[in-house]
């Protein structure tokens, strides 16, 4: 075989492997949809393994770490002498007796050091708990995801426009917060490769059982794990409404980075006037931030490289922002 022929054959093989991988991806999707291996079960594996990991891997609670320090602060110079071999225990015991004066002296000092260290760590922990308590009173809580005003009022007015905007985007579409996945279902029905996340416990259950790709995850945490320019579309419903400006800006910068050029961002938000009204959710009083006025979005997203279009809903209680990421991002 000539070099050219071999290169051609290797290229064919690479194409073949890419096709096989696509078929495998499809098989995985089918298996998950059939309920053979629910995505939730796969996620629980991680938690199960973490249960066996050292303290830091389990979340690093300081109390747990201190317990470990306390448990290992005393060093026992009397080593075990049991043995499976005949006479082994006697030999080991003799060796231990011979060495105990020396090992005992060393371990006593190490134990003293460990005890002093443990005491110091406990004092630090007490002080930290006190500081944490004081800080908690002034803490700005993370913004919750809120239900939109149109959630309980029949078909959502923005649905067809959003589906149209996302029908030919250059990559997967992420919907947050996806709830039971009804919008993800609509996107998939239209042939769009879509998935959803929702940080609210128990919200994705029904859709997940149906086989939709839904995950119970925090929005920012999820986006940080996505590669740059990986997504074709991002839909944020009720996610940014209650955020303070800094948190909102950080999230949108993350979205801008994860969207491919010409990718589409759709935001559905409460209108500020409705947020102040009686129909607003309890979060309106309790959340750290408030929804932006529609016109503000162009000022916010324009410098991030988006072309922005805003539509207000028929009832005036909510509006959509449809932003397309320009090919070359303008300087901030």
């Amino acid at each position: 075989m000539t070099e050219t022929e071999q290169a051609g054959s290797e290229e064919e093989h690479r194409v073949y492997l890419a096709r096989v991988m696509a078929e495998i991806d499809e098989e995985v999707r089918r298996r998950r949809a059939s309920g053979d291996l629910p995505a939730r079960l796969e996620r629980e594996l991680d938690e199960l393994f973490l249960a066996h990991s050292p303290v830091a891997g389990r979340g690093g609670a300081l109390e747990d770490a201190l317990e470990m320090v306390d448990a290992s602060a005393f060093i026992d110079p009397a080593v075990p002498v049991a043995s499976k071999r005949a006479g082994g225990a006697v030999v080991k015991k003799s060796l231990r007796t011979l060495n105990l004066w020396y090992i005992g002296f060393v371990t006593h000092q190490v134990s003293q050091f460990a005890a002093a260290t443990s005491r110091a760590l406990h004092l630090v922990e007490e002080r930290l708990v006190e500081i944490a308590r004081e800080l908690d009173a002034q803490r700005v809580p993370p913004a919750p995801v809120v239900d939109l005003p149109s959630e309980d009022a029949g078909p959502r007015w923005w649905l067809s426009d959003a589906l149209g905007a996302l029908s030919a985007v250059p990559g997967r579409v992420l919907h947050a917060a996806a709830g039971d996945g009804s919008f993800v279902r609509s996107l998939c029905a239209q042939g769009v490769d879509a998935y959803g996340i929702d940080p609210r416990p128990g919200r994705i259950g029904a859709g997940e059982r149906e086989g939709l790709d839904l995950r119970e995850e925090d929005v920012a945490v999820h986006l940080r794990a996505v590669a740059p320019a990986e997504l074709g579309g991002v839909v944020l419903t009720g996610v940014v409404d209650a955020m303070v400006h800094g948190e909102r800006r950080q999230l949108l910068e993350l979205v801008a980075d994860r969207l491919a050029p010409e990718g589409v961002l759709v935001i559905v938000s409460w209108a500020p006037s409705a947020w102040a009204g009686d129909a607003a959710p309890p979060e309106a009083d309790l959340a750290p931030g408030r929804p932006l006025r529609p016109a503000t979005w162009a000022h916010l997203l324009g410098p991030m490289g988006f072309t922005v279009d805003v539509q207000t809903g028929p009832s005036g209680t909510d509006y959509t922002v449809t932003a397309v990421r320009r090919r070359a991002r303008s300087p901030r």
Partner: protein
Amino acid sequence: MNERLERGALPVPAVHQFVPALIPRDATGSHTLLLRDVLRSAGWRSEIFAEATHDDLANESLRVEEYEARARPGDVLIYQFSTSSMVADLLAGRTEPLVLDYHNITSPELYGEWDPPAAARSAEARRQLAVLARRAVLGMADSEFNERDLVAAGCRRTAVVPVLVDLERAVQDADTRTAARLARARAGGGANWLFVGRVVPPKAQHRLVEALWAYRRLYDPSARLHLVGAMPSRRYMSALRRYAADLGLATAVRLYGEVSDAVLAAVYSSADVYVSLSEHEGYGIPLVEAARAGVPVVALGAAAIPETLGDAGLLVGTSEPALVAAAVHRVLTDEALRHSLVVAGQRRVKHHSLAAASAMAVRALTAVAGPPPGAGRSGVTERQP
């Protein structure tokens, strides 16, 4: 030691190697021994100076401290760099031209709290790399992935030279007792998955356990996972065992520890698929060994693995259990795919052959040590697959 050429009075130039520990059946140890033979065959004088040497290799090396008395003007020194060592500090203070033969340092973060001493050693190794890279006249890297580390550390001149590895150990005469035991187990049905590598967090054997769990649930309830490799992290190993037990895989996951070449050959010969979900490989010798043994490979495309494997394996983008399980299932049930991977694997083996890598090493070293006295002699022979 013969320090003069028979045909003249000029001293034969020397290219000596320094290594923290010379250990048999260890990637760096085997590479060091093979490189010593290559250097000598090319005509250079070459000795191995080690901080510690395994008893089985006692006659193969000298102690690091012995170099001072043997140092000659014109010596070129190679440091086999894969971990932190006092040897690095010693070489930092010497004036001979230094070549770094870099086999990668695992990120300390990948050890995390599982193995704090290993994380500390990695962090120290990074510090030492930064010092030596700036002083080195050449940085030799096993892969382009490793070469990027050298460049980032400040190495001005670099070359990619694959690890010297005798791939024949994967297909040598197998240990009969192990082979018989594995054959008996295999007769009862169930696919044999294999992974070879130290049982440490960066190799992510726990991900393999998860994938096996999914595979048994979806496709083959009798499948087994064979894990071969030293177990230096007691915490990780014990967590791995408990995790396997939690998932009902206590008997399906088999840990062998470090094994002889004959046992390794037996395990390779009984494997249906080689699966790697390792998150960190500077090269990945077992991937090539598996290809040499005709075992199809499914691997996570992380670190240097795509570079080492080329198109000789099915690369998955994530370690998601369902994805890995489906990929393995496809390889084991699609005869055309399996065959194409094995054929591509044999092609890849030629690319990583000892003869090819040896020639690259000599070429790279000639650039800094001058042509070897025996230029033109091959000295490297290899059985071809």
